[in-house]
């Protein structure tokens, strides 16, 4: 199908076919990206004249204690959610791989949370973790423990956010691991069995190494997603009218990087600083993704 002469005009239908994406991206992706870079060096509230700020926004960002708090929050929440979640996903995947019946049913149930509205999910968790009357506290009191002010404490807020993220994505990751397990041939396991390896040994020495590419994929995706957490804290503290709903709740314990970006850009109309934060977030996400990718890629040789 390749033309003998590579005259670009002969290929106009192909260029027409790929152009919608590139036109849309030029207008709504590339141009904003450049505009964003320009904005980060200026001060603008959307109404007053734009003034040049040089590196001031970035200098302020590096010194900004609230931004630092948001970075630390985001990393803590991400670790609390991702590490236990991926281990649970791996366990669920091997269980799914060893059951014979109801596999399709289990797969649909595992998938369901990840296709559910995040707003509805957060509202649900807000209700059951309610400081006074939430079901979680009622259960704790019923078994003789005292209730916890879940939505008030530095660590408890992070636990609630991590639980929400785990609930939504544990099954999704399990499905991906399960797909990886399906690709491992049964002969490898037969051989391990003949060599006298127990189930735990088999899991660590065969399953995990062979799943490495899939594990790297899930770690990278979870890192990118976790570093950009926004809707969970935004909705969780959305009805907290006493303070700015976008400040991450009591003590700003749920203030994530992207939530802080949203607050600065769209509550304070601080567009220039918002753009600087966006570039800061981008740099942190890139570095974190790279580190995680290197660690998981090296962990098992």
């Amino acid at each position, binding site marked *: 199908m390749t033309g003998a002469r590579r005259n670009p005009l002969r290929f106009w239908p192909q260029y027409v076919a790929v152009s919608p*994406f590139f036109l849309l*991206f030029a207008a709504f992706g590339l141009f904003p990206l450049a505009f964003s870079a320009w*904005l980060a060096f200026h001060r603008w509230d959307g109404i007053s004249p734009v003034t040049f700020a040089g590196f001031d926004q970035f200098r302020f960002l590096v010194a900004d204690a609230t931004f630092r708090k948001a970075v630390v929050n985001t990393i803590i929440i991400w670790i609390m959610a991702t590490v236990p979640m991926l281990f649970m996903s791996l366990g669920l995947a091997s269980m799914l791989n060893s059951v*014979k019946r109801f596999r399709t049913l289990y797969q649909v149930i595992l998938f369901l949370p990840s296709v559910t509205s*995040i707003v509805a999910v957060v509202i649900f968790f807000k209700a059951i973790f309610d400081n006074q009357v939430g079901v979680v506290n009622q259960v704790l009191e019923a078994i003789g423990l005292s209730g916890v002010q879940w939505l008030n404490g530095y660590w408890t807020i992070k636990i609630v956010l991590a639980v929400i993220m785990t609930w939504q994505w544990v099954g999704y990751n399990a499905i*991906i691991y399960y797909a990886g397990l399906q690709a491992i041939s049964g002969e490898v396991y037969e051989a391990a069995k003949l060599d006298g390896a127990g189930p735990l040994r088999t899991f660590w020495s065969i399953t995990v190494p062979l799943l490495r590419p899939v594990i790297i994929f899930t770690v990278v995706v979870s890192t990118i997603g976790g570093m950009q957490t926004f809707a969970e804290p935004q909705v969780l503290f959305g009805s907290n*009218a006493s303070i700015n709903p976008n400040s991450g709740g009591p003590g700003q314990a749920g203030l994530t990087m992207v939530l802080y970006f949203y607050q600065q850009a769209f509550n304070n109309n601080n567009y220039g600083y918002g753009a600087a934060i966006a570039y800061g977030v981008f740099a942190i996400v890139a570095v974190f993704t790279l580190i995680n990718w290197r660690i998981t890629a090296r962990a098992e040789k």
Partner: protein
Amino acid sequence: MAAHDTATVDRKGPSRPAPVQKGKSVRNAAKWAHLPMVVASLLLLFPFYWTVVMATNTNADYYATPPKVVPGTHLLENIASVLTSINFFGSMANTAIVAVSVTVLVLFFDSLAAFAFAKYDFPAKKFLFGLMLAFFMVPAQLSTVPQFITMINIGWVGTLQALIVPAAANAFGIFWMRQYISTSIPDEILDAAVMDGCGFFRQYFLVVLPVIRPGLAFLGIYTFVQAWNDYVWPLIVLINPDMLTLQVALSQLNVSRGTDYAVVMAGAVLAIIPLIVVFLAFSKQFVADSVKGAVR
């Protein structure tokens, strides 16, 4: 593929003879694996059940000790409160318009571009494809502020096209459909179509489109779910209270009726039901194709 196999196994059900070569211990292990699967399933399903329980009882019941554990009879009055608090049907209609338009446009633009990338060789193709993948990695919030300013300048703030147009084609879909087309359409069929005088677009409509329906089904439901659940961008760009999408309207309900859990949960149930219906209707296809896509 694996998921299709398991689907067949499930349909055969319990009458299927156990594999002879496996020992007794293996079969017992398989049986025991159901226990954690059932526990996990219950934990994952519990929020859906509890949302229904809260949506069908009164707010006072929510504060009762011990907590109510079975659905009540107050769903209709809770729904009535939802309808007076937010413009529910309006925002539902907005969400449906956005999700359907985005899905149709994405399916058309992405599969057309994917066809060109999969089956044709044209100057700068590798560069364009690489460029597309590079764009794919750029995080969304980098362009949020300027995109909002752009929308102000072209007068699209508060309109649905602000949600539809920027989402009308995407790198993920092109990438996924390219994989699908290159494995599912043999070059011979296309050569035959060329012999019959079919140009690029007639090949797309007459040969490619009918064959890639299953691939489009997966991309379609994926795109629909994403568009239906999108939250951040609609929250920023839809400022007029009459023009919200469902997710934003639901978060407004959470703000205004925050402690009336019965009403807020009724809203959540109403917002999730259409999505769950769509998901369950296509779930087998969706799960199977996600599994395939994940290990590619």
